[in-house]
Each structure stands twice: as C-alpha cells, then as structure tokens.
C-alpha cells in the first residue's frame, strides 16, 4: 500500500533482536523495530513517560510529504485496534487523492460513502449521508 510500519520502544536494537528471535508471536514480523533508548524521538511525539522511561502506546501516521495526519495514544493498559489503524491509514491515503472529500465516521474502505463539504451542506449533513 506504499506504507512502511516502524515499531519503536525505548529498548535497544539488541533487545529487539533477542525478542524477535525468542518470541513465537513475532514470527510474522517483517517491519523494522526501532530503538529509542534516550527517549529523544519518543519525547518529540509526546509519548515518553518520564516516570518509567517507557513509551505510551502511541500510533502516528505520517504522509509522504512528512506531515503528521493522525495520532492515537493509549495508556499502558489498553491495546490498540489494528483494524482501526488500517482504517485510518486507508482513509488518509484515499483523501490524499480525493482532496475535496472527507470520510465520515462509518467509512471503512474505498467505495464507502464520503462527503464533499460545501455551504449547501451546512446543517444538512443528514441529507448528505442518507441521500
């Protein structure tokens, strides 16, 4: 899809290697595992926890121009939904090509209903979605 996933934690690249080779659940992992032991990049993205030295569960989508188009941050105890992550990526990819369209809350994939905002739609979103 023209998208590169990179995982990041404050572990070193040596720990990533060891974990990848030891944990069966990671057998299918093919993306680079990045190391941020100083927390510099984690702080840039606002996910570094100064109390623990660990990263919060943050996901950031950056477009090919280098612009941040989406962010989601969960506390340690809540896993992120990967389907939702892919949905948001696909929506941003679609909207990068159709710059006059926006994806409403029920949008899941290309072909689903989008909106083209205009003055005529103000106060009439219901008609636009249902019509």
């Amino acid at each position, binding site marked *: 899809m*023209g*998208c*590169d*996933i*990179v*995982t*990041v*934690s*404050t*572990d*070193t*690249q*040596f*720990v*990533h*290697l*060891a*974990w*990848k080779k030891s*944990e069966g659940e990671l057998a299918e992992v*093919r*993306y*680079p*595992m*990045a*190391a*941020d032991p100083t927390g*510099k*990049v*984690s*702080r*840039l*993205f*606002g*996910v570094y926890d100064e109390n*623990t030295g*660990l*990263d*919060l*569960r*943050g*996901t*950031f*989508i*950056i477009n*090919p*121009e*280098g*612009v*941040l*188009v*989406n*962010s989601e*941050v969960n506390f*340690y105890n809540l*896993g992120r939904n990967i389907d939702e*992550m892919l949905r948001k*990526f696909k929506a*941003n*990819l679609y909207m990068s090509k159709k710059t006059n369209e926006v994806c409403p809350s029920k949008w899941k994939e290309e072909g689903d209903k989008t909106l083209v905002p205009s003055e005529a739609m103000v106060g009439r979103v219901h008609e636009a979605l249902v019509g």
Partner: protein
Amino acid sequence: MSEGVQLGRKVPDFQLNTYDPVEDKFSNFRLADQIERKRWTILFFYPADFTFV
C-alpha cells in the same frame, strides 16, 4: 498532548537505530528517507519488549 509534533504540520526529521528482521541486520530509519522515497510511515510506539500486549 504532543510536545513537538502537531497534526497538520511537518514532522521534524529524525533517525533511529533499528533491527531489521527481514535482513536480520541492524540498520537505520530516517524520516527524510521516507519523504525522498514518497512513502507513508506509521510509527507504532509501545512500552517494552518481552512484555505482554
């Protein structure tokens, strides 16, 4: 929420050492390379290796 980055703004260039499981090698990730190659990037931060989802 975010200290340095902002939605709708360019992310400052950064780089990170990586472990590449496909090549089984240590490598490097740089945002500037992604932009040059016109690739989307999803950065997925998590607390720690050897812990449980």
